[in-house]
């Protein structure tokens, strides 16, 4: 059974997370985008509106921008900020791999060792994985990003 005690609390609320929470990176909705989604965590009401802007790069499509507006707890806010740092500028394929890595970490119930080279500040979320009720918070913007990116790509397809 998963447990949470005082010590875990610090594992959950690592300074990196609280820093991102207080000073979120990339927050705010910006105009350039091919897709916008609105995701809600139905159990708690946390919400995110997220836009994805893709551009063609040398080696395929690139995540040119992720802009978002979010209402929610420290975990969900910090996670959106970390997502922005990790994914913007990456090729879509690489971004999807990072997404998968983050997902695996969060769904690992605390048993997955995060790879700092891939996840950078995202490794701070390793502690969150031990709190089943908070995993959804951490994943809210990541799920929104995947959804929006899929739509943006499908939209591309429509155009071609």
């Amino acid at each position, binding site marked *: 059974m998963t*447990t949470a005690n*005082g010590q875990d609390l610090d594992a959950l609320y690592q300074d990196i997370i609280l820093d991102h929470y207080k000073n979120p990176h990339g927050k705010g909705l910006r105009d350039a985008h091919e897709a916008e989604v609105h995701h809600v965590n139905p159990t708690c009401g946390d919400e995110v509106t997220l836009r994805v802007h893709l551009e063609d790069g040398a080696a395929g499509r690139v995540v040119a921008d992720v802009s978002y507006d979010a209402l929610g*707890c420290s975990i969900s806010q910090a996670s959106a900020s970390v997502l922005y740092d990790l994914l913007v500028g990456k090729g879509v394929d690489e971004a999807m791999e990072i997404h998968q890595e983050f997902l695996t970490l969060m769904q690992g119930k605390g048993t997955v060792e995060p790879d700092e080279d891939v996840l950078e500040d995202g490794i701070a979320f390793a502690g969150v994985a031990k709190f089943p009720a908070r995993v959804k918070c951490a994943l809210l913007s990541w799920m929104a990003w995947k959804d929006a990116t899929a739509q943006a790509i499908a939209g591309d397809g429509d155009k071609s």
Partner: protein
Amino acid sequence: MTLEGLLPELTVIRKDFPILERALAGGMPLVYLDSANTSQKPQVVIDTMVDHLERHNANIARAMHQLGAESTEAFEAARDKVAAFIGAPERDEVIFTKNASEALNLVANTLAWRGEHQVGEGDEIVITEMEHHSNIVPWQLLAERTGATLRWFGLTDDGQLDLSNAHELINERTAVVAFTWVSNMLGTINPVAELTRRAHAVGARVVVDASQAAPQLPIDLAAMPETDRPDAVAFTGHKVVGPTGIGVLWGRRAFLDGLPPFLGGGEMIETVRMEGSTYAGIPHKFEAGTPPIVEAIGLGAAVEYLSHVGMDAIHAHEQAITGYALEGLRTVTGLTVLGPLDAASRGGAISFELDGVHPHDIAQVLDSRGIAVRAGHHCAKPAHARFGVQSSTRMSSYLYTEPREIDALVEALEYTRSYFKLD
């Protein structure tokens, strides 16, 4: 410490609830302040269920053997106990459902179909902005599916129903007025008799969600004048120290008789031919299939337990704890209570905001100290929206709550503030 109104036997009562001995992570004792979400279960409820399963288990009504007779007797005795608990004018007016949500949907769903009370275009359904989703969505679906219009009472800044336009809202087009007796978010106690009288005066039916009232307030339907008595009242077993999987719809016989069937199947029929069927009278008409037998029996034990402690005494206890909690919460910097601030006129659920910390984060820190509260929208999104917040933290007490648990909460809130470096 002693507080006026507390249950005199509080220590003994706490012993009845095995989970209160539970140690959480880090050896923290459990401080359970989430009873409006679901209540804990006394040993007698668990034992009654176990005894049934180990010794008397059988299907009811249809079985003619000894186990069947025992099971049927216990199930119907539970109906008698529930009827007594709410002072039902007739025991057959008590319908067992799976929860309060099903009870409310039973009414809303069947009002869509041909029958004496059928709702249609031009009709108006009136609810309120402080309802639980389970008393909003069924009416939205009904309105959508029948072309009726959904309208609602707004709220005042102090969390009361805004009755200023009541005469316009409840008018001759009104078919149904549905509202909560006690708000699960704001704690507000609504004027059931007054609203019901007004609705009856224009010929509307009244459905009351008593999910938060039944645990805390003595209810005596038979004692209410006909004009003031709602046509239907719903509540849920798991909030009155009973098990999950069981809820109650009480309905005035004439009202229920006029509704078409909800779920069709075994037990709700009079006779079945392939070409068509006829239906049994209440309560069976609305209890298709094998009912939640052991759950009803558990609920019977639960309401008997509450009645034994005394609903007046429980109400006084809740008021005492609520008053004490409101006082304590007031001392926390940056904390704002949503809803009425007077313990005497409210129920025991207290939702609040704490400047600078999101409710999830508050709940998380409290949990690390063994304190269980609820954080989120409490299935009352519109009420949160009305107060411009997306979510809140809610503490809710019950008959087993002690003042020292409130102290622990207040102290933990202070700790939360310091943990998030708010000073």
